């Protein structure tokens, strides 16, 4: 498949959804934003509980993430909820500059009347949704697709089946011209030298070294040694012997290809190929950072199960654990347990997974979308003042 049926954008990559995003830029707008979202169930609510008193890198990051969600390939238009016209107007101009529709509602403009503002935003949102839903899908290059990988609540099947399978998908997608990304810096413990060796240029390797060192400095400064008791007794009883082995099972999600880009949290993915991103370990933070970087679809592997996904980027849940696949059929999109049961070789499952991913890019829904288990979270890089 060299094309998929998606939504071409004036600026940047094509989308696989044409979402109306309700962007609540500040915690002051949160309750009103939830009322708007309740009235517009087909829209995606992205709500920051913060927005005042950020300083330094944390302030820049928060602003970057909001802009990235508002102009994400899967975003068709944005209802902006802001505390003041300064913030709201700047975002409205930014969104409009990418060819997307935007409508700004600020408490300042509405004389601090949150009820009136909410009612007006709902009315505008209904018209907006109708417009966005009327846009037909068109053939778009499959090379526009950026796939992110994440793992959560892993078990022995994750490192043996689901993660290497997503790695196969990554290799396949890079071969057809696409971009892919995996993250979670502390899951690379002990394997960093191998990642540096896989970097395509010394510059990329140097950047990755610096990002890893900075993340480790955070743990060290907090007096925390992430290597103590790692791997733990549960890992040992499951068959994992060394830290390198545990980490290799996690980074198997990235496939075997060369690393073309080392990215800071949320940094835009500009080129095709395999990227690694420095992020915290919590899935909501790392997934949102990869989505902000441009990923339109996420592959989330799990051992015991884990309902969470992105709200903006359809998130495919995969498991290699037969019990989990049987126990959570409404939450698992791809059951790879035949490999764990020895019934099929992993290579036999790749065409099925590619076909599932392509179908979801063309509009088929994921379990996370059907269940309403998506969200976006913006990491904090420091305390507020």
């Amino acid at each position, binding site marked *: 498949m060299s094309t998929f049926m998606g939504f071409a954008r004036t600026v940047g990559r094509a989308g696989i959804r044409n979402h109306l995003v309700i962007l609540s830029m500040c915690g002051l707008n949160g309750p009103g934003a939830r009322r708007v979202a309740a009235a517009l169930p087909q829209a995606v609510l992205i709500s920051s509980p913060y927005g005042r008193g950020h300083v330094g890198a944390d302030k820049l990051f928060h602003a970057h993430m909001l802009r990235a969600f508002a102009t994400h390939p899967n975003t068709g238009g944005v209802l902006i909820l802001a505390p003041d016209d300064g913030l709201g107007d700047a975002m409205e101009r930014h969104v409009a500059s990418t060819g997307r529709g935007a409508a700004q509602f600020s408490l300042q403009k509405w004389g601090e009347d949150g009820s009136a503002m909410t009612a007006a935003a709902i009315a505008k949102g209904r018209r907006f949704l109708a417009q966005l839903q009327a846009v037909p899908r068109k053939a778009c290059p499959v090379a526009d697709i950026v796939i992110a990988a994440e793992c959560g609540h892993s078990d022995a099947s994750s490192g043996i089946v689901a993660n290497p399978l997503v790695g196969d998908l990554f290799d396949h997608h890079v071969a057809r011209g696409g971009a892919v990304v995996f993250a979670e810096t502390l899951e690379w413990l002990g394997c960093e030298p191998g990642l540096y060796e896989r970097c395509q240029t010394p510059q990329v390797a140097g950047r990755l070294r610096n990002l890893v060192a900075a993340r480790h400095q955070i743990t060290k400064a907090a007096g925390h040694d992430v290597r103590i008791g790692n791997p733990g007794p549960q890992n040992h009883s*499951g*068959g994992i*012997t060394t830290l390198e*082995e545990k980490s290799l099972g996690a980074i198997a999600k990235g496939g075997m290809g060369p690393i073309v880009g080392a990215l800071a949290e949320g940094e835009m993915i500009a080129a095709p190929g395999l990227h690694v991103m420095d992020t915290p370990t919590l899935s909501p933070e790392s997934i949102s950072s990869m989505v902000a970087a441009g990923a339109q679809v996420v592959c989330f592997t799990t051992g015991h199960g884990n309902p969470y996904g992105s709200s903006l980027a359809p998130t495919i849940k995969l498991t290699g654990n037969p019990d989990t696949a049987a126990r959570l059929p409404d939450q698992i999109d791809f059951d790879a347990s035949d490999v764990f049961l020895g019934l099929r070789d992993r290579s036999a499952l790749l065409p099925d997974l590619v076909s599932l991913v392509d179908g979801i890019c063309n509009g088929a829904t994921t379990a996370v979308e059907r269940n309403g288990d998506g969200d976006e979270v913006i990491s904090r890089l420091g305390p507020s003042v």
Partner: protein
Amino acid sequence: MTLSAVLLHPEDTVVCLLRDHKEGECAVLLSGTSAALTSDTPMGHKIALRAVVRGDPVIKYGAVIGYATADIAPGAHVHLHNLEGGLR
């Protein structure tokens, strides 16, 4: 034919068991069968595909996961008693 172990990368010196195995059993791989297991070994654990000399690297996922702390025979359980990570 039901496979009972998986080779994660062509260069690996160990394979991962997909079910519990008894001593004397051979693991069934896509490429054939392993040497007979030298001890009972549980699901998820590793056995050596070929002999590893003490001090040599053990390869899984095509990468070094640690070094043998004892000579390891084909079919032997590879775990804490004969494998140590390279990180200290």
